[in-house]
């Protein structure tokens, strides 16, 4: 039994969403939107790296700052690895650098969530337009 169009379409949307989460901009890249993908990738990575540079890896705290961590994980699964490094190592972070670092890395994650949703929506539109033709 061959899978229906809807099953394939759902799988396509899931793959685009996963790609967009794995690497910021990769979802749009898979949809042949190269410029959009480049802008998203550069800006989100830059925002995330500035956050890490300002506050150190210690701003990713899966134990003591769970709400921030939930937003940070939206950047990429790599953040989980950074969280383990941060928990295992001794990375002191405090006061204003901690606040700024957490805000930058979390906003970068939330922006990537916006891009993930947008990539899935564009993939859905492409799929619908493709079948309507």
């Amino acid at each position, binding site marked *: 039994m061959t899978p229906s169009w809807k099953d394939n379409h759902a799988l396509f949307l899931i793959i685009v969403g996963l790609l967009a989460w794995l690497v910021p901009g990769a979802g749009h890249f898979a949809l042949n939107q190269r410029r959009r993908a480049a*802008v998203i990738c550069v800006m989100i990575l830059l925002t995330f790296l500035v956050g890490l540079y*300002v506050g150190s*890896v210690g701003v990713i705290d899966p134990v003591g700052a769970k709400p921030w961590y939930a937003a940070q994980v939206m950047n990429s699964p790599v953040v989980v690895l950074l969280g383990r490094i941060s928990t295992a190592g001794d990375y002191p972070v405090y006061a204003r650098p901690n606040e700024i670092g957490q*805000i930058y890395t979390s*906003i970068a994650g939330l922006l990537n969530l*916006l*891009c993930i949703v947008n990539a899935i929506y564009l993939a859905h539109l492409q799929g619908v337009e493709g079948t309507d033709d």
Partner: protein
Amino acid sequence: MTEMTALIGIVEASFSRPMPIDTNPASMLWLLPLVASIAVVYKATKVRAIEPRAFAKDCVILFGSIMVFIIVAALILYLVAWVVAEQLPKIFG
């Protein structure tokens, strides 16, 4: 090889110690790059096609709009804090 090791050491050191940032009004300037990033990414998801000039113009307009809104919100909050902290105690003795 030595240069490569030194480079890795510099990168690791850069991301393992926080920057020295004081808690003063100047630290609010860290808001600017973040607002720029939000404006660019948001516009990247909204425009139909990314044409450099039109895209840059849209981003600058959104950046300006966000900044104006933040400044107005800050002024209103400052005014409320001033009334509550300095004027109300005078009125009610």
